[in-house]
């Protein structure tokens, strides 16, 4: 049996809410069709932990800490087409709201000052990645080939982008693609 090789896809969650990945799952039965055409490699929904060489890399979320930056750069090196999925990846969105405060104030509030915290200290062991002073959108660190805006983009839009790419075309946006309500 000479099956056509499947397109390899990897996905990553950086600093975000995972709503964009949930929108991918909202493809519902179309996931079954998609599984015929693409191979999901490293992704939060699989047990493949290292990003291999892939055709398409999909990134959700902003860059909040050093580990996010490392994952993003690894993804860029190993994929041919990099897609920024959703507003956090594209603009920093809600996670970037913390940029108007000093990082020290943000962690002090979270771990020491909150009213329910009784025994509070700021986590500083090497096992937890260092937070960046500023939350950054991903194209500040790497070249992005395609942006899919939305908080989150809906499943129909994600399906449109993926099927256009699978057909060898670059998706063309129309206003209706980008209206989700």
């Amino acid at each position, binding site marked *: 049996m000479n099956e056509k090789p499947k397109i390899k896809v990897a996905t*990553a*969650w*950086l*600093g*975000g*809410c*995972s*709503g964009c*990945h*949930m*929108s991918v799952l*909202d493809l*519902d*039965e179309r*996931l*079954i069709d998609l*599984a015929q055409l693409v191979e*999901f490699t490293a*992704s*939060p*929904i*699989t*047990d*493949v*932990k*290292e990003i291999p060489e892939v055709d398409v890399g999909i990134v959700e*979320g902003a860059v*909040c*800490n050093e*580990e*996010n930056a490392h*994952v993003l750069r690894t993804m860029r090196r190993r994929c041919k087409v990099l897609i920024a999925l959703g507003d956090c990846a594209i603009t920093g969105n809600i*996670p970037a*709201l*913390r940029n108007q*405060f000093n990082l020290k*104030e*943000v*962690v002090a*509030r*979270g*771990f*020491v000052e*909150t*009213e*329910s*915290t009784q*025994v*509070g*200290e*700021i*986590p*500083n*062991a090497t096992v*937890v990645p260092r*937070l960046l002073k500023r939350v950054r959108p991903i194209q500040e660190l790497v070249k992005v080939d395609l942006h899919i805006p939305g908080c*989150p983009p*809906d*499943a129909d839009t994600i399906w449109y982008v993926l099927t256009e790419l699978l057909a060898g075309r670059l998706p063309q946006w129309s206003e209706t693609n980008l209206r989700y*309500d």
Partner: protein
Amino acid sequence: MSTSTDQRTITINPVTRIEGHAKITIHLDDAGNVADTRFHVVEFRGFEKFCEGRFFAEMPQITARICGICPVSHLLASAKACDAVLGVEIPRTAKRLRELMHMGQLTQSHALSFFHLSAPDLLLGYDSDPALRNVIGLVQKHPDIARNGIRLRKFGQEVIKLTAGRKIHADFPVPGGVNKAFTVAERDELLKGLPEAIEHAKFALNLLHIYQDEHREAVETFASFESNYMGLVQPDGALEHYDGRLRFCDLNGNMIEDQVDPAQYLDVIAEATEPWSYLKFPFIKSQGYPDGLYRVGPLARLNVADKIPTPLANTVFEQWRATAKNIRRSSFYYHWARLIEIVYALERTEELLNDPDICGTDIMVSGKPAHPQGVGVIEAPRGTLFHHYWVDENGRVEKVNLIVATGHNNLAMNRAVQAVAEKYVKANRLQEGMLNRVEAAIRCYDPCLSCSTHAIGQMPMIVELVDVQGKVLERVCRD
């Protein structure tokens, strides 16, 4: 950190097929046995700071972005906190529409946890090929089962969409009520889809019952340990998700506290921090840290409740209680409790759809900030969720405190990892099957680390035995 000079550490990074970004380390003693385990949560976003200065009515929309898996939980807890700031009682129809949306969320979130994340372990096997041990592998091996799971989650998402306007981050719950009335056509469409969804839920329960019968011993002892439990209940002790009061039970099911006003949560629970995790560690105040460990979520809710107020779910609940003297300790039973709750959510959905007021148009009351603070509490799919805001006289947010479902389970997840590690790490050697079973113990809790700390990611999984000088004694990689 232990200062023992010959202590060794095993690291699992990251934990996958959970909703968040985490590592696990297992610390060994002189004899090479498990001394301590740590479940590290490695992301942090800082909502408790950057919401300061916002107008309080923006809070539901901002805090929904804490989590895309259960945004409805944050929307509702936040809207309830805002109601409290206004000092209003929302109209009956609005309350029912919010609860309807919540039942859609319970269905979709629990279906995701069972079918998409955990079923690959149960149906393909803990030791099956990691490259296929995921929902896509399930589609290939058991297409009918996967399709049922996908359709069940889809129904839950449809309930949210038709009630609230969109599936993820709807702008529907607002301070004082909701902003969209429900139409007869929307109601009828959901009623039409309901029987199929109930069939899928029964199918899942049946699947799990077969598994539990075939693996009785393993199920009963899987990451089993003693703990306290917390959950909301109705005045008569029945299961409750949208309103209700807090009940705390001890390891044997004896009441510690009952019918606690959730707004008084600061009197009963507090949080500790550890240098090695961005997720805080809540505990029961009267028992101190870390003895005041308690569990929340589906298992805890069924352990504290006296009954389930819908008939079919209550029948299964009777089985739950029959042999266990009310308390189920094995972490595995989170799966069972989750499926029982899906049945409840669907039955409750039907009740709400048939409520004579559900298509009413009295859906919002207006007001001005009347109180300097407000607390909103609900049972999210993963457990009790607290939003607490302090505002000035113009409604500008001055302070925010959040305790999310997965946070409450932080101590418990550490204990669960320890229970499994003790079984699978003996005298310096990593036993076959340890990696995925440790992860599977975490998966029972369906942790939403997006919620709790506020982000997600992935890294290769490497388990290393390392001595204190950093010398690698044994290394297992999985990619």
